[in-house]
């Protein structure tokens, strides 16, 4: 299987679907002539021209609204948020219109819109440019929210997202555009609502999504040296959500640690912990642990930024707590 970067896999998905389907267009700031701030759309304007790769003014609310209108009229726009932080400018369009039009119209109007861009922190962009918005967007009925971490998934889920009849919030692992992995050629999709078991193990269930999945895989390697076999689950899809895979795993391991970069209160990890106690209470041997970002706006200073996000050491400590290794 060919090896591609996360960025190239993402570009391939959009380019291939634009070749197949004329109604697919791209909109965003500097995505055309400049090739995109993160070079995700690099070269696409040469292939598809400025009518399908549209450079917009710096006005998220405006071009997101325009894209919603295009989607209502039958096109399939893919909007780039230069980073998800700027989506706050467009939140009214996303939440009040994109998420609700299908409901308002009794199912007569669909909004086949994808909004994509880098999510999360870890690259010293400071407080206003560092947010993990999966919990925020996952809160609203009417939006689908996904967060792929492997190059294979990012292509398959982008194809699924473009073909989905309803709005999809596509949260890319911003710090991982350069990571490589095997990516199948051609047309395939990765369906929403199905988590990926990234590593099998019987002793503890570790759950994350986005770049924290890679962190968990490294932690699992460390744990294996001590004879602890961790099962690592990559949620991939925040909404719809795959309860079954998590519950089946916890029924096997009896313990779970949920890791996220976003703040802990009212977050994805809180939801996962709640679902576990609802569906697997009688299988729990320890309280579910959450490892989350510190409850402060993201710091700029490198040392503080590192301290504010989950680290492998934090995760290991949490795993030891659910394994009761402290008390032994």
């Amino acid at each position: 299987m060919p090896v591609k970067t996360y960025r190239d896999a993402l570009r391939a998905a959009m380019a291939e679907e634009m070749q197949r389907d004329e109604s697919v267009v791209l909109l965003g700031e500097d995505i055309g002539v400049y090739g995109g701030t993160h070079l995700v759309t690099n070269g696409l304007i040469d292939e598809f021209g400025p009518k399908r790769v549209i450079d917009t003014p710096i006005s998220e609310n405006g071009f997101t609204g325009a894209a919603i209108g295009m989607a209502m009229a039958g096109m399939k726009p893919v909007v780039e948020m230069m980073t998800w932080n700027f989506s706050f400018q467009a939140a009214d369009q996303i939440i009040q219109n994109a998420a609700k039009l299908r409901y308002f119209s009794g199912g007569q109007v669909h909004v086949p819109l994808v909004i994509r861009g880098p999510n999360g922190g870890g690259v010293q962009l400071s407080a206003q440019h560092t947010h993990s918005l999966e919990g925020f967007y996952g809160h609203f009925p009417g939006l689908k929210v996904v967060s792929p971490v492997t190059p294979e998934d990012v292509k398959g889920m982008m194809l699924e997202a473009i073909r989905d009849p309803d709005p999809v919030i596509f949260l890319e692992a911003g710090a991982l555009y350069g990571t490589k992995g095997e990516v199948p050629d051609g047309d395939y999709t990765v369906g929403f609502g199905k988590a990926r078991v990234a590593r099998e193990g019987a002793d503890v269930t570790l759950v994350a999504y986005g770049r924290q999945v890679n962190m968990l895989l490294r932690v699992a390697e460390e744990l294996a040296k001590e004879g602890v076999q961790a099962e690592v689950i990559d949620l991939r899809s925040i909404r719809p959500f795959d309860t079954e895979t998590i519950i089946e795993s916890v029924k096997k391991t009896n313990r779970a640690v949920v890791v996220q970069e976003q703040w802990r209160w009212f977050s994805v990890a809180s939801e996962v912990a709640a679902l576990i106690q609802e569906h697997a209470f009688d299988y729990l041997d320890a309280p579910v642990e959450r490892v989350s970002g510190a409850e402060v706006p993201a710091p700029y200073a490198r040392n503080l930024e590192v301290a504010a996000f989950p680290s492998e050491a934090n995760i290991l400590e949490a795993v030891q707590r659910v394994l009761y290794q402290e008390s032994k």
Partner: protein
Amino acid sequence: MAEVIMPKMGDAMEEGTLLKWLKNPGDEVAEGDPIAEIETDKVTLEIEAAESGFLTNTLVEEGDTVPIGTTVATIGGEDEVGKGAPESAKPVAEADEEPEEPAADAPAAEEAEAPAGDEPAEQPETAPVQVATAEQEASAEPVARADGERLRASPLVKRLASEHSIDLGQVNGSGPGGRIVKADIADFVSGKTPAPKAAAAATPQQEPAQAASAAKVPAEGASVEISKMKQRTGERMAESKRDIPHFYVSTVVDMSAALDFRKQSNASLEESGGKVSVNDLVVKATALALADNPTINRSYVNDQLLQHDSIDINIAVAVDGGLIAPFIPAADQKSLGAISRLAKDLGTRAREGGLKPNEYQGGTFTISNLGMFDVDEFIAVINPPQAAILAVASVREQPLVRDGRVVVGHQMKITLAADHRALDGAEVATFLQSVKHYLEHPMLLALS
């Protein structure tokens, strides 16, 4: 009989005061008649009768303030006047505040599993810890913690304890605050002699002889074509017996607890359609024993020993035309249910010829089980390059000596054939003891 309640007259209203009864018990009322005057924090108004009849009881005195939803009076037939009043004037809705209710802090109420009322709320300070008296054993769930302390156990432990009738009062808790956790149950079960359960023991299960493909030898000795599969198996087995210095170690496993465990598991699995077989138990026990004794999980290749990290267990399956051994990857990491489902799927597809090469090429240890064919014991030929193979015979109902007494129980003989170039007798014997231990303490199979 209809109840007249203190109505909610606005979102902020939580209670109302009954100012004055406009009707007395025994009075006839028509639907819509005012029967009392009430006062809220904002307004004074009248309560009307919701149906016609007689005012049978008034339950609140004039001047009393009661929460909304409280029954203040009843309306019924003439004959009901003055009797049959509801137990008490109790709020039936929105009872956020329960000022009159005693605080529910009796420890017994918190002990989900404590028999209500059986135990004093507080244990005397001298209550013996860890000593099971006959009385305690008779009660469903003793609470033998020091100083009446709450027994802490994880939800998993509580479930296991109730399913397997384990007295948690006997178990030490190693978790925070003395919480009993899964590992404590495992320790406890390991150290415990399984209680004789001869009466309840299941009969040895006779799996349908689905794969009985014993070839009939023609009477006249006509030549029979050997299938490709049989030729390949034959070559490998000949190579194995020719090159590998086999040696054999056997042991007898007391399967009474395992059969009991299987019966319980299957009763609870019935709704999901899954059933755990004796072979599934053997696979899981073997996988765990291999994890404990990694030297057995090796291959002998080109005068070298390969240590396998993953425990992939092949299961020999009799099929039309021969034998095939698909494997269960990472069997020590899989739950019993997962092993069972996968084994069933592999077996079915093996018989239908639907296995993929990567499902039978490989594996690190093989189990050959002839238990369904009524065999006392047998010896299997090593599946090269693996270092050993386990032969599993039938479970038999037999008289056993347990604690100096003869009881009826169930036994199963297992025999390990090992490659003497890779393994020595002592480590093989240790491994077999480990398999036996897991099978005789089957809860360990569910815990790991």
